[in-house]
C-alpha cells in the first residue's frame, strides 16, 4: 500500500493540480496547466511556491518530504509530484 493507501496516482494528481491552480496560479488569467506542464521551467512553481507546495503535500497527504527529495525530477510536472507522493512514506510520528 502506498501513502497509507489513500490515494491513487490520478487522485493525487487531481488534488495537486487543484492546489496549484488555486494557490499558485491565482494571479495568472486563463492559466491552463495539465499533468505534464513543466512547473519549474515555466515558473508556475517558483522559489517561494516550492515551499508552499511542500507544505500542502505534507498536510494533504500526510507524508514527510525529505530534503533530498526536493530536486527537479520530483517536481518537474504534476505527474512527477504525484509519483513522489504515492511512493512516499507517511511522516514519522
Amino acid at each position, binding site marked *: 500500500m502506498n501513502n497509507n493507501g489513500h490515494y491513487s496516482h490520478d487522485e493525487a494528481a487531481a488534488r495537486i493540480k487543484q492546489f496549484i491552480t488555486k494557490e499558485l496560479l491565482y494571479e495568472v488569467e486563463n492559466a491552463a496547466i495539465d499533468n505534464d506542464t513543466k512547473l519549474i521551467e515555466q*515558473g508556475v512553481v517558483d522559489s517561494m511556491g516550492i515551499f508552499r507546495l511542500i507544505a500542502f503535500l505534507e498536510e494533504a497527504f500526510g507524508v514527510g518530504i525529505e530534503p533530498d527529495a526536493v530536486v527537479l525530477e520530483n517536481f518537474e510536472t504534476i505527474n512527477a509530484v504525484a509519483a513522489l507522493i504515492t511512493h512516499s512514506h507517511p511522516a514519522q510520528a
Partner: protein
Amino acid sequence: MDKALCDVVVIGGGPAGSLAATYLTQKGYDVVLFERAKHPRPHVGESLLPHVWRYCDEAGVSAKIEAEGFTEKAGGTVVWKDMISQVGFKDFGHTRPSLHVERDRFDHILLSHAAETGATVCEEVAVTQIDFHDETQPVVHYRRLTDRTTGSIACRFVVDASGQNSVIAKQLGTRVLDEGFRFASLWGYFDNSKYFAPGGRAYPFERLRDIPPTTFVTWIPDSGDWGWVWHIPLRDKTSVGLILPVDQLKAAKAAGETWESYFLKKCVEIPYLKALLAEATYHEKSVTGVQDYSYRSTQLAGPGYFLVGDAAGFIDPIFSAGVIIGMYSAYTAAWAIDHCFKKPERSANYQALYSKQLEGRLEVARSLALPGYRSGNHASELARAMVTFESKTEKELMATVSQMTTRADNFFYLIEDDRLDETQFHERRYRVLETLTT
C-alpha cells in the same frame, strides 16, 4: 520591553530580519526583534532587483514601498574590459520595476511594517550572547545601548539577521572568511552626478525623473578581474562604491593614502566614472569602508536557530543579489520555523531543508560573482540542483548577466550538467554598445 518569554527572537532589523519578523507575526507567533541601531540608519546596498516585489507582496508591504516613490531604474550598464553592454529586466518578463533605494528609508519602512504587523521591535538593543544549553528554549541576553542595562528573554527559535555581525556564527565559531576572496569596499556620495540611461547616453542628474537611470558597473583596470565600481543614482544623490582586493587598499594605505583620499583619487581615474562625476560635488566625509567581507557560515540552521541574510553569508555585491537572498532566506526560515512549531518531531528535517536550499542559492550567487572561483563538489551539487530549479526565464537572466563580466567561469562549470538544457544558457539578452556618450 520586559517580556521574559516569546516564540521567536529576531536579531537585526535590516530587510531579512524585518521580513522574517513580519512573516512569523502573520502566522500568529509572538516575535521580538532586537535592533542595535535607531532607524532610519545608513546602509549600503541600494540597488534592488525586481524579485523583491514577491517577498514584499507576501509581507503586505508593497503599497508602502510604492508610495515612497523610490528611483525606478531601467536596467544595468556594464563596462568590462573591452565590452560595453546593457540589460533590462523587462526583457526577462519582469513587469514591476527594479529600484534604487536609500536604504535608511527602505529598511525603516520594512521595520515599521514589522512593528505595525504586531512584532515587538526594540531598537538600540544589542544582543550579547545566546544560551543554547536547552536547545528547545534558547535564552537571548541583551544590553540596552541607551542606559546600559541588561536583560534576557527565552524563546523557541532565534533568527539571526544581524548582518555582517553574524552574532550566532561568531559565537559558535562557524563563520569563516572566503579565503582567496579578500575584498574591501569603499563608498561615498555625490550631488549632481550624471548617469547612464538605456541607449548609453549620459544625462544630467535633474533628468532622473523623466529619463530613468541604469545601475552602472565598471571594472577597475588595475585590479585585474577583481575590482569594480558601482554608480547608483538615488533620488537626491548618487552612491558610488569601489570594490578592491584588500591587498590593493593596504598598499595604498602604506603609501600614505587615507580611505577617503584613495577613494576620490580612483573616482577621477576610472574611465567613464570620471566623466559622470566631472561636475559632481562630493559629500564631505561620506566615505565608509569595510574589509574582508566575503565570508560564509558553515552551519545555516541548527537546533533553535536559523541564520538569514548577510548573517548566513556575504559574497560580492556585483549582481545586486544580497537583498533578494536576504528576503528569500527570511521567507524560507519563517516557513521552516512555522513547520517546526507544528511538527516538532520533524524539526531536524525542516532545518536541513532550509540549509540545503539556502546553501545552494548562496553557492549560485558565489559562482556568478567571484573571479576565478571553483565550487567544491558538495557545493557544486547543491548549486546545480538550485539552478535546475529555476524557471527558464531566470536561467536566461543568470546566463545573460554571467556573460556581461569575465568573472563567471565557475557558473559555466556548474551548468555543464545533463539535467540542464544548455540551449537555455546560450541566450544573450544583453545589448552590446559601441560606446557610451558622456
